[in-house]
């Protein structure tokens, strides 16, 4: 692949990954969310895949994509269990206030955990499909 693409991707890929996490976390109050974040992460690795070869791209992914899918689904499913303990229904949102010393109060809840699960799953799915297809060619 071209030199420009390779150099650019070395800078862009980490930035895009950080951006994807940012997109996921802000989703609850601004445009974004787990789906979009996951696809952006997938896009980052796609860029890496296009600029280098398959082996390099595969080794740069810390967890195998199939495992990412599984962990994502598990996280999303488990996030609903907190609702069972708190109220009656599965997947009811449970929110807690975290008082951080310097930064103020953080409102954290199970929908965030759900979103993380969705993020992992979508990222894993995109990577899985891309890697398998790239193996063909």
């Amino acid at each position, binding site marked *: 692949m071209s030199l420009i693409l390779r150099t650019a991707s070395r800078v862009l890929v980490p930035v895009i990954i950080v951006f994807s996490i940012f997109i996921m976390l802000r989703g*609850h109050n601004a445009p974004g*969310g*787990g789906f979009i974040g996951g696809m952006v992460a997938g896009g980052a690795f796609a860029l890496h895949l296009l600029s280098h070869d398959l082996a390099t791209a595969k080794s740069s992914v810390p967890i195998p994509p199939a495992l990412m899918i599984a962990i994502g*689904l598990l996280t999303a499913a488990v996030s609903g269990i907190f609702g069972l303990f708190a109220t009656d229904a599965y997947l009811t949102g449970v929110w807690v206030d975290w008082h951080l010393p310097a930064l103020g109060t953080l409102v954290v809840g199970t*929908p965030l955990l759900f979103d993380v699960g969705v993020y992992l799953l*979508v990222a894993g*799915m995109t990577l899985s*499909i891309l890697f398998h*297809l790239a193996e063909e060619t």
Partner: protein
Amino acid sequence: MWLSQRDPDGQQRPTRGSPEGEVLELVVLVLSCFLAAVAAPGLHKILHHRVGMVLAVVPAAIAVWLAAHAPQVIAGLPPSVSIPWLTNVGVHLALRLDGLALLFALLISTIGALVSLYAGTYLKGHEHQGRFFLYLYLFMGAMLGLVLADDLIALFVFWELTSISSYFLIGFNAEDAKSRRSALQALLVTGAGGLALLAGLVLLGIATGQTTLSGINANGALGGHGLYAPILVLVLAGAFTKSAQFPFHFWLPGAMVAPTPVSAYLHSATMVKAGIYLMARLHPSLGGTTQWTTALVLFGSATLLVGTIQALRQTDMKLILAHSTVASLGLLTLLLGLGTEHAAQAAMAFLLGHALYKGALFLVAGSVDHGTGTRDIRSLSGLRSAMPYTALAATLAVLSFMGIPPLFGFIAKEAILESLLELPGAIPLTVLVAILLAGGILAAFLAAVRPFWGRLRTPHDHPHESPVPMLVGPLFLAVAGLLFGILPALADNALVSPAASSILATDSHAHLAIWHGFNLPLAISAAVLLASGAVIASRLDLKRFLDRCFGGLDRIGPEAGYHASVRGLLRTAKWQARRFQNGHLRVYLMILFGAIAASVLATILLLDGGFWIASTPSWDMQFQEVVVALVLITAAIAVTRATSRLAAVAILGVVGYAVAVLFIMYSAPDLAMTQFLFETLSVLIFAYVLWGMPRLVKRSSGLVHIRDAVLCSVVGALMGWLALSAMTERFEDPISTFYAAQSYLAAHGRNVVNVILVDFRGLDTLGEITVLAVAALGVAGLLRLRNSGGGDE
């Protein structure tokens, strides 16, 4: 409904359940058989062939219980029980033991115990013997439940259970292709009848407003009701298929591939009588009309005729007995059709007698097979010296079959002839029955007299007598025939009369006796016997004569019809799969689009006023929206004109981007972002998939292009029209107002879209991501399959 019956004092007493209340033991009777079935494979591992003997205790105990409660039933106080099952549709597990049920239940349990004992030794050493007893006791429980059932749906469930367990039993020798085919044939024929029966029973329940058989019968005759004809046709379809009436009789001889204990139990004494039971049971309600009488007499006579002729053409002992069973079932149907008091009594007497001698003869056939290795009557004779006890049982049974005093079969035949003669204008029918009785005697002679008498001749050496467990069954049944013949009052008071009373819904006493004086039935019986004796003595080769007359009909008979139907069904299925599932994606899409277009168009056209949009949509559009829309349309058209696959994919990406821009213009940032990302990734994925594929080639004609264009335009236009229509037809507030209001307050989020996705509709999202996961795994699996070179996907 209350079923009133007069007790012996002549007082009217409403009876529903016994005076002691619900008799739960009835349920225990049925359940114990099922439990025995479940235990059978395990017990077989421990006890091996003795499991037959051990399990036979269950039906023996059932028989004892029934005998103990018989006086109560005879007195007109049937024990019953009703357990709620599906209460909101009015279905209960209702069981009731009246006279008819008592007769059948005693036959089922007694013969069941004997067959179980017999089968233990007959199938000794068979590796699947445990499974055999599982199926056998499953059948026993189902059959018992069938005759005891009072609720319509419970009856149907047990009916189908008998069909299914019969399927397993017939196909027991599963390695033999003929066994499998015959089992399937029996299942298909009786199953189709079962479906008809379900419809008939439901209609019957609707027509009478009752859900129990006792209630329906208490309602009186249904003769003039509007639904009578369809009910009759459907119920008789069920009864005729199960009881092997012409033209549904062909499955019964086919079922002879089953092990002989199965043939003795199911296909002579119990299961095939289920249809007879049903007709007898519903006689008060459906009987008495000309349609009933005509149908039953017609089909019964035809079955009697066909069965007798076919029986005389066979050379295998079991097949002779099978066809003569068909004939006997026809005779029973005929008698039930006549509907008089004497006919009902004669039918019940004949039912009892037939079960005893036919069951015994089948078991004898099995013993002969076991002892000599063959059942071909052409190569057997004089077995009485090698198998004395079996010969004794066979002789007693065959004398009962031929209707020779003092056996019970004689009494039954006298009752039949008497009931036929008392009808005005029944001379032709009586003559037909008499001739066919003679045929039956000839068949009996072939099956069970010639093999045992005369000079000893067998195909192999050392024919040997059966072991004791295999002698108990035939001897018991044969001796019972003798006993009831000498003391007919025993059978009369305890079994035949109560059963006839149930059929006729009034008290009835049969007065069975050996000697009724010198009357016409006796003369006819004597004439029939003499005629048969003459034919036997003349050594006429009846088989060859009948083969020549009727052999050609085999090719166009009902069985040929069955095979042709099955073949036709398979051919249609293959053709349909070839047309609609031929592997081309465009064909699938075409069918999908065609179906959608057809159904939506049909709905719109059939719905009045559905074709119009309520209010005209507003036409004010911004300039930039128009531009983007034009780009979208141009790109869509360009996709169809593209010649390179990658170009087509790229242009498709432009369509997606244009849609995303529209989303931005209509202030849906999340949707737009998702769309942009998805378009990018999908172009990438498509590029990988289509890499290395050849250039697009124009392969279909102009006509096909036009057809495709029209279909797609119609579908697209319909979808657009539906979207516009949905947008302008508002009858509630849009749900977005609720979500917008509650989003921050309840869910701590300002982004309504995301809050809906992960909180309000979180369960939907969980389902969607599961689908995505499965899709990814599917892609991985398919590609890995291709890589490993494992054939076509």
